């Protein structure tokens, strides 16, 4: 069995398409909480995910990955943009149709939410400390009226087993677990309703490499089995390369590059991507890093630089970069990049 055929067979039509997504948080000052400016946490994000596919999402800490994910399921109301999602929950006979999630009523959105699950970044705060593990995993089923006595209990035990926990953990409370164990509880909970899209916000950062490997394998198995799609936010670029079909790179609220995983790692076309790839730590104590040290300060999303947001830190910047924001364009088939000099630069991959 060749892995490419299964991969191609696995990936279907577009499931999610985000266009021009923006989320600005007001900055308030003084007694009257006057708005003095905005944090442009997400500032024009466009991306798509096909069904059965994994889109890796990487970028600087604070560049808006979590905010963008939260906007997609409307945990935050976006400031602008569109989020098209193929849902079965809104038609009586379950036929799929593409809808803009931002136009749905509250009640409709709640129905669609069972198809989109989220695994959170901070395992301790996303689990209710007063609920047992069994209740935590059952909760989504209960909320959506899908809890069936007996059957659901078996499913919970199966889910728990699949994420590497034991049935005797069911009656325990979150604080009795280590960080990694809590994250696995969150994953079991996310999978409880058989979603079609899972937004994974750093799902394996807290896990040790062995459990991480198990979890990545598990996520891949579940993907094959249920044709799941993932948006996979992570900082570990080796993990992202391993799990993703395509990868999008964000910098200060914008997607600056998006391409197939292999292509992006071998032939990065955005200088920020190049700098990131050069900084990946290697599990080898004798390895001497030759990372590109970015000059200047991390950009401030409430007051981004002119032109290309990356220009104060970019070693390839020219005058044009200060004046004009580069357009996010497809420079090669399925390779998108926002850089004026994308074609001429020869950047270093891995």
């Amino acid at each position, binding site marked *: 069995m060749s892995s490419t055929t299964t991969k191609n067979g696995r990936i279907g039509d577009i499931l999610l398409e985000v266009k021009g997504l923006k989320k600005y948080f007001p900055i308030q000052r003084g007694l009257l909480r006057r708005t003095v400016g905005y944090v442009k946490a997400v500032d024009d994000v466009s991306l798509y995910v096909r069904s059965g596919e994994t889109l890796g999402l990487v970028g600087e800490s604070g560049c808006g990955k979590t*905010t963008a994910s939260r906007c997609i399921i409307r945990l935050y109301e976006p400031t602008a943009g569109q989020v098209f999602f193929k849902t079965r929950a809104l038609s009586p006979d379950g036929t799929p149709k593409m809808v803009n999630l931002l136009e749905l009523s509250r009640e409709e959105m709640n129905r669609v939410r069972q198809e989109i699950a989220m695994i959170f970044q901070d395992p301790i705060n996303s689990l209710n400390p007063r609920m047992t593990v069994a209740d935590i995993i059952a909760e989504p089923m209960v909320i959506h009226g899908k809890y069936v006595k007996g059957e659901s209990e078996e499913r919970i035990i199966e889910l728990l087993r699949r994420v590497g*926990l034991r049935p005797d953990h069911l009656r325990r409370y979150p604080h009795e677990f280590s960080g990694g164990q809590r994250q696995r509880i969150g994953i079991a909970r996310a999978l409880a309703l058989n979603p079609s899209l899972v937004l994974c916000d750093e799902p394996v*950062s*807290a896990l040790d490499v*062995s*459990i991480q490997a198990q979890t990545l394998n598990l996520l891949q198995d579940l993907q094959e089995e249920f044709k799941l799609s993932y948006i996979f936010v992570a900082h570990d670029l080796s993990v992202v390369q391993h799990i993703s079909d395509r990868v999008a790179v964000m910098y200060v609220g914008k997607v600056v590059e998006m391409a197939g995983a292999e292509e992006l790692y071998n032939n990065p076309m955005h200088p920020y991507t190049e700098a990131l790839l050069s*900084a990946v*730590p290697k599990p080898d104590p004798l390895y001497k890093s030759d990372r590109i040290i970015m000059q200047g300060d991390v950009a401030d999303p*409430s007051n981004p630089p002119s032109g290309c947001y990356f220009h104060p830190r970019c070693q390839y910047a020219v005058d044009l970069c200060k004046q004009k924001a580069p357009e996010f364009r497809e420079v090669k088939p399925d390779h998108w990049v926002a850089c004026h000099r994308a074609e001429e630069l020869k950047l270093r991959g891995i």
Partner: protein
Amino acid sequence: MTTTATQVEHTQTQTDARPLLLEVQDLKVEFTIRGGVVKAVDGLTFDIKRGQTMGIIGESGCGKSVTARAILRMIPKPGKITGGRILYYRRPRHPKPGEEDKVEVIDVTKLDPDGEVIRQIRGGEIAMIFQEPMSSLTPVYTAGTHINEAVTLHRLLPIKKLGDQMVERIMEYRRVTKEEARAIAIEMLRRVGIPKPEQRVDSYPHQLSGGQRQRVMIAIALSTEPAMLIADEPTTALDVSIEAQILDLMRDLQRTTNMAIMFITHNLGVIASMADEIVVMYMGKQVERAKVVDLFYNPKHPYTKALLQSVPRLGPKTGQRLASIEGMVPDPLNLPTGCVFHPRCPAFVAGKCDKIVPKWTQVGENHWVRCLLYEE
């Protein structure tokens, strides 16, 4: 208030480049829960010298964070230290003339966990970056308030005076002022890569991204210039470029202040570049200890070997599944007989590994392992 600490005072004679800072001896920590007793840390022994970075790795739930918290006497209920000693070789942070070499040995396990001594040590002398930044920041305080608190509590500024030989000598110390504390806070936020630190100093935790919260925690911990930093998964929420910047910052401080670091992480790439030595833990015990190069190039314990194989590595995409360690972490209330790793061990020898408890055995210079394969 009486403290039951054994405080042995003595002055170190030889000026070793790396005097001892912390010695953990046969440490045991237990949690009594409904089903029984969980031995979260079960006979752990290691030491850390000044200026050294000790890496701790191991399976999720093997007791890394509990060990770290034991050192600061911050074990959550119902956890208890039930055995062993944690010796802290304390030197005066602000030595008076002639007292620079004074060393006081404190057994931390004997201290009152709410007492004056441990509160001085905590934060000021041994600082900790916690694994979950959100739960250790107070939601109603801004980033700046958190740092100010640490700084005004623990940091003193030297008052320099010209001494006899016309050299500047530190004679006295004073507490930092509010303004100075704020300036330090902003400077620390800048050094950990927070954009617009003059503004962000007034942000509340919920207004910060996951990685920014983690960096605030790091800034708090480093702002007091501690003698030892315990970093529990300090960079998991950071992108690789800021991660590299923060690791550089830690190394810098280590060089300038001779800070010791206990670095807990799952990221073998990070540990490879940071640690001098590594302790590998499994189910509350150390199973291997070696210099970093030996551990990566010549691992001995089957668990360490398996761990090194499960790391995804950058390179041509193979589409293959990752190697992972078979089976599950055992039930701590129902531990396997013999070697606790035996149900999952690829090198398992029936009739031996399930019967005999392996001993801590030396296999090379500074290289120790707990596995029957290496016992005579």
